[in-house]
């Protein structure tokens, strides 16, 4: 059990700096997701925690001990790799027991620990199989089994679900989360999929281009994104972000579209409204938008509607299956109090 502290971490390759002073804490037993678009440095950060990448500046501490100069095997961590990295020439049993064997544990202890982990993960019937005889999901479980047999202080996951098909991914999401509850160890989970982050993590750390954009509980990031990037990144389908001019309790989005605003902000802004916060209202409702439907996608549970109003494109999400079809003119209204406002210049939240 341990808490992880990242302090002012930087990383450079030669003269190119790819990480610019990232700091955050992971409490003991907490499940933290690192998310961001590809190339944002989340995997590099995880590998620095693991000790697989050198640290250019700042510190990584695990359980109060600075581990910058500590070898990976001495850090008391376990890592689940994106491609699983199972040893192809060893059986499931040997794969899972490898670390214990290296640690010099007795045959009986190894056997016992592997059996317990296999039981938890439902791998008992497969212990004598080779990795190539397993399905993707089973390989994924073996990779996790290899991590949990050691009872490490910290679990590191590097996009472990990205090679699974959609249904299995949802199932493994729940399994990893319940495993986390059961073992109670600190977990850091890297993903580019914000849905994974939202559904699994106690806290999310959003990164972009080597910088931390925002860290907080999933719903806080969803409800109060600190900047336009987080607003657009968290939530699916993504938030509508429309440039406009604010002033006098209103925001002007185009020549003939002005919406009321519960903010006194002025100047160039980005007006944000989530697709699920747009509702259909009768014609003539104050503060409404009339737009033409250009796309309708239905998933059964929800209906995704894309509509256009001059240069403005808006996306809306309905769960009550309104009778809307392509070419219709519809009247939408942002639900009061659920809009977001960002400074167009700094991209920071202003209301």
């Amino acid at each position, binding site marked *: 059990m341990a808490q992880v502290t990242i302090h002012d971490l930087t990383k450079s390759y030669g003269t190119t700096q790819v990480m610019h002073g990232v700091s955050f804490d992971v409490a003991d037993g907490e499940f933290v997701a690192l998310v961001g678009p590809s190339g944002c440095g989340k995997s590099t950060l995880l590998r620095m925690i693991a000790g697989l990448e050198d640290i250019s500046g700042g510190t990584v501490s695990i359980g109060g001990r600075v581990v910058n100069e500590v070898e990976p095997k001495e850090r008391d961590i376990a890592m689940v790799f994106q491609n699983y990295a*199972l040893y192809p020439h060893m059986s499931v049993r040997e794969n899972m027991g490898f670390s214990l064997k290296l640690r010099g544990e007795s045959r009986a202890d190894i056997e016992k620990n592997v059996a317990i982990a296999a039981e938890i993960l439902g791998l008992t019937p497969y212990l004598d199989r080779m*990795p190539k005889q397993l399905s993707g999901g089973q390989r994924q479980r073996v990779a996790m089994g290899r991590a949990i047999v050691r009872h490490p202080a910290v679990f590191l996951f590097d996009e472990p679900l990205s090679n699974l098909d959609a249904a299995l991914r949802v199932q493994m999401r729940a399994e990893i989360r319940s495993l986390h509850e059961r073992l109670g160890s600190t977990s850091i989970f890297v993903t580019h999929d914000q849905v994974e982050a939202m559904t699994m993590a106690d806290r999310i750390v959003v990164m972009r281009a080597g910088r931390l954009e925002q860290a907080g509980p999933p719903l806080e990031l969803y409800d109060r994104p600190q900047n336009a990037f987080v607003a657009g990144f968290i939530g699916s389908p993504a938030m509508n972000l429309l440039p406009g001019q604010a002033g006098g309790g209103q925001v002007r989005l185009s020549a003939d579209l002005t919406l009321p605003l519960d903010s006194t902000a002025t100047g160039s802004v980005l007006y944000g409204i989530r697709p699920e916060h747009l509702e259909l209202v009768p014609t003539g409702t104050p503060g409404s938008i009339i737009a033409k439907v250009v796309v309708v996608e239905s998933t059964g549970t929800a209906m995704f509607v894309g509509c256009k109003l001059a240069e403005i494109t808006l996306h809306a999400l309905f769960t009550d299956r309104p009778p809307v079809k392509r070419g219709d003119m519809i009247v939408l209204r942002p639900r009061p109090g659920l809009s977001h406002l960002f400074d167009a210049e700094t991209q920071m939240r202003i209301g």
Partner: protein
Amino acid sequence: MTPRATKRLATNAALTLGAALLLIWSLGPIYWSLVASLTPPNALISDNLHLWPVTPTWEHYAKLFGATSTSQGNQVQSVWPQFRAALLNSIITSLAATIVTVAIAAVGAWAFVRLKFPGRDALFIAVVATLAVPGFTVLIPLYRLMIAAGLIDTYTGVTLIYVSAFLPLALWLMRSVYQAMPLSLEEAAWIDGASKFYTLLRIVLPLAGPGLVACAILTFLSAWGQFMIPLVFSPSLATKPLTVLIPEFVTRNYVDYGLMNAAGIIAIVPPIILVLFLNRFLVQGLMAGASK
């Protein structure tokens, strides 16, 4: 016949023809050598040539293996003692060159892929570039070097030359084998608590097996067929291999084609045995299951 069936037939015919040509190209000389080794000496130089031995004879093999034999009506000493010594020399130098080359390539190529040190790539290019140096150009300096080191006509000397000649190719091959191997396997082992050397030994080398076997076969065959190097550096039967001994069956007034071909047929047996043996380890798809 439908047009598709006709087309398929034509494709098959072309493939069969290609395979047949390739087989004749590669096995033809061996077959011819076998025929020559079984043909009586006078038939070998007769005007009407046969593609198979009309009156097969073991006399050339008897000459090779027997204690004494008759040549042109005279009783002569058998060549067996020389042949045996040369066969042994060929086996020893080729095996030694193979073992040393594969061992160095296995570790060295890993260093060229996974270790970071200044000038790594330049060094690798320099090593591989030596492949472009024609052997003839270094013969004289190499000879002086070997004399100075007292390594002429020794197993060590010949093996060292072979290793220096075949190592670059082996390094190159093993480097691409390691490059194709996911780094995460090694990282997983480090996190599991293995040292770098233990990881190389227990994780990397077992998975590089097919590559190592390919290197071994390549090196052994190259060493086995060497002529120029032993011609210069193996003057006596202490280290002289078959490739140098067999041409010596040509004497001033008689070329013993039958004996040469019998010796040649015997000479291809050890490499065939080795390749058949190592081929079992050339298992494909060993990496399957490592990832995804």
